[in-house]
């Protein structure tokens, strides 16, 4: 029997959740015995190659490309998991949600205290995805099956969730593993 496939991605996040995934240390050897990684920053596969059992999404959606990737994950994963506070609630990027977009861009590229940009150029290339009006938690864009909060969720939390899923059990985190920070 072929191993279940797992895809992961980091959208509007900091990759901290992926770092936490790597923090499972030597259990990663057990993990690759259990699963086959498909698209993931871990193996640098750029697109999901075939249907996956599990998709792990770090980060919410701050731009159109995030939405595109999230939709690809939703379309190709049986179970889709938001992991980390950015995916589940928007997280730090969502702090911009009550500031007008124009002001955010201005602060970032023109008037921020650490910006040196005498020409006032704002990067604008068709390759740069357009920003969304606000940062959306993943579940506001597509249906999400499980949320694993934490900034990041601890390695133990991720391990507990993955092993539960892979053994066909519902994810029920013990008290110590459900944390928002």
């Amino acid at each position: 029997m072929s191993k279940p496939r797992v895809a992961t991605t980091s959208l509007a996040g900091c990759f901290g959740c992926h770092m936490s995934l790597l923090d499972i240390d030597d259990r990663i050897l057990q993990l690759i015995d259990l699963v086959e990684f498909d698209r993931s920053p871990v193996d640098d596969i750029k697109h999901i190659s075939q249907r996956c059992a599990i998709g792990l999404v770090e980060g919410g959606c701050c731009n159109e490309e995030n939405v595109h990737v999230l939709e690809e994950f939703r379309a190709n994963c049986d179970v889709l998991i938001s992991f980390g506070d950015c995916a589940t609630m928007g997280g730090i990027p969502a702090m911009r949600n009550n500031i007008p977009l124009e002001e955010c861009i201005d602060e970032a590229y023109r008037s921020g205290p650490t910006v040196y940009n005498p020409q006032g150029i704002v990067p604008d290339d068709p390759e740069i995805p357009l920003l969304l009006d606000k940062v959306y938690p993943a579940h506001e864009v597509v249906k999400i099956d499980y949320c694993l909060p934490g900034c990041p969720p601890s390695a133990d939390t991720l391990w507990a969730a993955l092993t539960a899923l892979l053994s066909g059990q519902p994810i029920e985190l013990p008290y110590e593993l459900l944390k928002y920070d």
Partner: protein
Amino acid sequence: MSDSVTITIDGRNIEARPGQTILEAADAAGIYIPRLCSHPDLKPIGSCRVCTVVVDGRPQAACVKPVMDGMVVQNSTPELLQHRRNIVDMMFVEGNHFCMFCEKSGNCELQAMAYRFGITAPQYPFQFPEKEVDASHPDILLDHNRCIMCARCVRASQELDGKNVFQSIGRGFARKIGVNGERALGDTDMAATDKAADICPVGCIVRKRVGFEKPIGQRLYDTRPIGSDIEEVRA
């Protein structure tokens, strides 16, 4: 008046003193009724509704409802747990709660309540309201993003500090905690020694320069669910 009454909570008979609220009687008996606005040193006001129980068939806030002999109280039915969870979810989405950088994280009663209820993410959409941060006071920070309008600070200032630093202003979703100064907290007579500085259940009112004192793992609710202290009375 007799000096003791008997009430039933989830089928268990409890002795209570007349004049006690259901919540106080439950606490004394080692039964934890979840609550956020209630505080043992303050007059109860029943604003958060997390302590809602069913008394003789009717919903009541346990923190304000006095015991009466023969009362039959339900505290942990699946319906009540669901209503409470819904209320806690509402508090999360009405504010901007960024636990990852909040000084109160690990010691926050709202967060702890969500942990106790096993909430992985609120079921309601985040409202991302625009709220102010008032850092005008030299020793105390007032961050409205984290306020749950429990009015503990209002009561503590009046009842414990003999002042009137805080009061609710506005109404509805725009309701917020106002301060008794021309512009901001720094214009009030709030002092670092005020009880009101330490009574906030969330990170709305925090002392400056003392955040993140305890490492993760050693904070109040890192390993022990909120209410454990009360439940241990029974054990």
